[in-house]
């Protein structure tokens, strides 16, 4: 008699265990069906970027010697430098350290980032401070007295 009761209890525990297992699986599936779209929703979609390969900046003569300016190359800030000898250089304007926008320091003839004091030479090589990599170069072309900045090195 006692054994029957035990085996009955055992089977009911097994059935309960099995049902709990099924319930757990269903619960996980249910959770996943909520979490998956939420995680996907959190990740912002890629915005189509106008694919600019070249940008007309303006007349060469309008840009002073030993100066720098940020130009909008699509959504990318580009630092256009004219050094004290009149040579044009264009660099990706975003510091390789932590994403701040760099500027040209005419007094030191250097590229400088105000956020953490990193500096680069006018060819984009990181000189001092925290920047781990050089700034990417952009090509500068002059046609008919007009200045163009383009992707890739000249």
């Amino acid at each position, binding site marked *: 008699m006692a054994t029957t009761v035990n085996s009955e209890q055992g089977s009911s525990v097994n059935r309960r265990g099995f049902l709990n297992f099924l319930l757990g699986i269903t619960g996980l599936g249910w959770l996943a069906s909520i979490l998956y779209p939420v995680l996907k929703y*959190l*990740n*912002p979609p890629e915005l189509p970027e106008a694919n600019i390969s070249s940008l007309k900046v303006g007349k060469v003569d309008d840009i002073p010697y030993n100066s720098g300016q940020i130009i909008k190359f699509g959504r990318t800030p580009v630092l256009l430098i004219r050094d004290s000898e009149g040579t044009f250089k264009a660099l990706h304007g975003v510091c390789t350290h*932590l994403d*701040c926008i*760099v500027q040209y320091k005419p007094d030191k003839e250097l590229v400088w980032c*105000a956020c953490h004091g990193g500096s680069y030479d006018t060819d984009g090589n990181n000189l001092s401070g*925290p*920047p*781990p990599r050089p700034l990417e170069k952009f090509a500068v072309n002059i046609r008919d007295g007009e200045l163009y900045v383009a992707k890739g090195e000249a």
Partner: protein
Amino acid sequence: MSNIGTKIYGWLDERYDLTALVEFGKKKTVPIHRESVWYYFGGLSLFLFMVQVMSGVLLLLYYRPGADQAYESVKFIVTNVEFGWLVRAIHSWSANLMIFAAFIHMFSVYFTKAYRKPRELTWITGMIMFFLAMGFGFSGYLLPWNELAFFATKVGTDIVGVVPGIGEFLMKVLRGGDDVTGATLSRFFGFHIALLPAIFSAFLGLHLMLVQKLGMSTPIEYEKADNSNLKTMPFFPNFMLRDALLWLIVLNVLAILAVFFPFGIGPLHWPLGLKADPFAPAPAGIQPEWYFMFMFQTLKMIPGKVLFIEGELLGIFAFGAAGLAWTLVPFWDKKSARGEKNKLINILGIAAIAFIILMTAIGWL
């Protein structure tokens, strides 16, 4: 009048057994000893949080999120809206004072080892609220959409991106894209006024419940001494009135600061400045709020590469590990749990404070 009060009490008591609550409140006591002064800082943080909620709701009446409206609406608040400057000043000052009070609360609990068994979870919930408070500070800083905020957010979110594996994803989720844009502002606004307050309130409720359940902690040396000698005072009304007095004093201090220094003083300042421009070079003097300064300064001082690891990655991991160890202190400080003195904890705590003060000072100089 009192008759109506008694009737309402009776009505509620019949249904919800208020008398049990009142009895519980009568039994609530606060230990009196040389360290008692630290008991006030938790309540003070709570008071300042309530000020934040109220002033925040007021700011919401005029604030408009979005890259083309946020800066203008904050400018409108401080220039056109009557007492708008005051509400913004109160919100900013109270935010800073709240973090400061929470810092003191945290360190006093740390040094008196009030986190030891059985209050481990009280400490953990407190630490979670501390990190959430920093999240409030970080997300709120961007909302005026000015130059300083823009670059501080660029740097702060870029740091997240350095974490291997999930960093890129996290950074994109925080920014709402690859760069800090109006999409970031929308998200931070949502974090600041909905997500963080909801999570914070849950932990605050839990924290306060645990404090009620376990009562005030007594420092080890007083606990070990003959317990019958330890003096206590009733919470109602003695301690509550002291709390209320302190809150009143702090409210006055807050009012004085907000009226005389609506845009802050010294390194503690929040001028509106220029509107954020994603195509302008970062201005000199970019700095985060003072409670992030020590981390910011440390990252600034670590070279680009340490051996072959990127410097910032190393810094982030060091801070992450230190923060985790600090949060889990009740679980590895076995000595305090047994009621023994643990000098190592004091040394680590003093080192942490010294490091924070030193780095903050270097950052400000």
